[in-house]
């Protein structure tokens, strides 16, 4: 643990695999930049790996003022023990006030280990980070703390967590909840190269095999999402979701229930155990709207919900409520889009 220090920087763990940056740390750069600007401090990125120097420039373009670079052949593959050692040393040397990690498989493996060794606080799976003040019950005022905002109790409550006495203030942040920044190629920053000493005992895990696959669909990038729930009824009937998505140039998605029923695969899942998305338009078809699903889509700009149950909770977050049989409504909607889209296009003289 380090003491409260107002000059401390804001840091982002720049997770990379095989020399490629993950999406989540890039998303975190925009949030980190924002927090650092409010606090009037610099934004640092921790970059660990083997031969990854080339990524430093990218991190600077995404908003970093400084990149703390730790390169070593033994850092090529992530391991909790070795990465914890390096990051622990960095934290103690530079005393950042905030450290944020992506809530990825690596971030969720690494973050707690660092929290334990630094004896600092860590809040998991945040959906938002803000700066704010906190007054303790005995009247003490703590200014400019990191508000770590996350759902808890299965999404039934939203908790704002703080740590005011033992720093750094740390959090893991869910994938997709922060917007992707646009790189600024003119940005300048500083690369600080750290000396790394590691011995094989610090790598107790041997990786025998690894299989990764790229997701078939990038829901985060989709402007329009058409999602189906258990109400769609069958994998065959899920064709309706694909058709509606296709005619809008959108991506098909699903609730956990629909995925569990085998209507579509997990890559398409939106919600607490899937992706968090915020498209311009989200069309929820046959989705009752469990809180776990809503937490993954309620930031969409416009929400259209189609359900035959007028009491379905999904209507509470919908801008357009359509009560009816999805098997009739969806084809009608496709027809309307095709006609309307054509007419508008003519009308605007395109």
């Amino acid at each position, binding site marked *: 643990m380090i003491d409260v220090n107002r000059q401390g920087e804001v840091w982002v763990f720049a997770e990379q695999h095989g020399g490629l940056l993950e999406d989540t740390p890039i998303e975190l750069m925009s949030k980190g930049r924002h927090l650092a600007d409010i606090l009037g401090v610099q934004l640092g990125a921790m970059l660990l790996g083997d031969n990854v120097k080339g990524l430093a420039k990218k991190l600077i373009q995404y908003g970093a003022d400084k990149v703390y670079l730790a390169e070593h052949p033994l850092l090529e593959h992530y391991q*909790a*023990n070795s990465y914890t050692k390096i990051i622990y040393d960095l934290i103690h040397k530079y005393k950042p006030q905030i450290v944020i990690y992506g809530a990825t498989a690596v971030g969720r*493996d690494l*973050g*707690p*280990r660092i*929290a*334990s060794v630094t*004896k600092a*606080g*860590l809040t*998991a799976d945040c959906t938002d980070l803000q700066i*704010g003040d*906190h007054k303790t019950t005995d009247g003490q005022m703590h200014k400019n703390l990191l*508000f770590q905002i996350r*759902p*808890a*109790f*299965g999404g*039934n*409550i*939203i*908790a*704002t*967590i*703080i*740590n*005011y006495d*033992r720093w750094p203030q740390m959090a893991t942040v869910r994938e997709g909840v922060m917007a992707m920044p646009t790189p600024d190629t003119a940005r300048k920053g500083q690369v600080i190269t750290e000396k790394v000493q590691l011995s094989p005992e610090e790598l*107790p*895990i*041997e*990786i*025998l*095999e*690894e299989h*990764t696959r790229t*997701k078939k669909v990038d829901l985060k990038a989709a402007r329009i999402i058409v999602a189906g729930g258990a109400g769609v009824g069958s994998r065959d009937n899920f064709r309706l979701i694909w058709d509606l998505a296709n005619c809008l140039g959108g991506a098909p998605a699903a609730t956990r229930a629909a995925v569990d029923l085998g209507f579509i695969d997990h890559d398409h899942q939106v919600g*607490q155990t899937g992706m968090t998305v915020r498209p*311009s338009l989200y069309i929820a078809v046959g989705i009752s709207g469990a809180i776990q699903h809503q937490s993954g889509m309620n930031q969409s700009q*416009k*929400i259209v919900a*189609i359900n035959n149950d007028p009491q379905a909770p999904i*209507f*509470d*977050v*919908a*801008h*357009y409520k*359509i*009560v009816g049989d999805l098997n009739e*409504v969806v084809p*009608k*909607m496709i*027809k*309307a*889009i095709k*006609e*309307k*889209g054509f007419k508008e296009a003519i009308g605007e003289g395109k």
Partner: protein
Amino acid sequence: MAYNCVVLVKQVPDTKRITGKAMNDDGTVNRAALPAIFNPEDLNALEMALDIRDRFGGTVTVITMGLPAAVATLKDALYRGADEAILVTDARCAASDTLATSYILCCAVKRIKYDIVLCGRQAIDGDTAQVGPQLAEKLGIPQITYVEKPVEIEGRTITAQRNIGNGWQKVKTQLPVLLTVTGEANVPRIAAAKKMMKYKAAMTPAGVEQKIKAENPHAGADEIKELAVQKCSEMDKKGLLIEQWNLDLLKADLTWCGRSGSPTKVHRIQSVVLAAKETKSIEPTDDGLAGMIHELLEDKIIA
């Protein structure tokens, strides 16, 4: 070669089956609306330990930290085949965050001879997945998180397959190790009728004392204590006494327990009140839908 497994379990409110309002009007959690259950992925951790014992021999010890009522979860673990159960309970544990919890659990686990420590990937009340890795760090042992298949063990070498989000990884390390187990790893066995018969009466010493108090409403404190000691020793002989540990017994440094040991504090809790947006009802007719599509085009929501 036999292995001693320690499984850490938690009694949690069933957040997936909420019966009423999850929150009281004063902002506290309405426990009555949330029935207490065995944290689902802890059942997978227990199953993994039982499977290791069945294949190689050894013991399975289950530990939980919680209120005295968490003894129900320990009994459930005994019904399913655990050899021993320990309740860590102490009023000074209250308000522990994940860091303080992992410290207290570390003090408890260190009292037991173990080869493998197992936890569920995460608990459904907090969904943090932090206690496992924090405990591994405090014990000074490696961790293998998100184990999604039964493990292989040879001598002191363990091989496990873990979920890494966009795929899987097979890793190898030397015991002792801490594993966190996902819901995909196995199908937890159900309670065995014979064991239920046996352990139905199992209790902690505090539970025994409470029962004696209820049965002898007019007895003095000394008498109750004496009767309790006697009853406990009887139950212990039958293997029905669930061990109960407090922070003194664990020799825990109180600065690292409870509120003082918890760097994270709650600033605010909000019940999820879904933003009452302006909702427009659309008739499911050609005209109604065409009108909506027109609006979405006008607002440049669709192009």
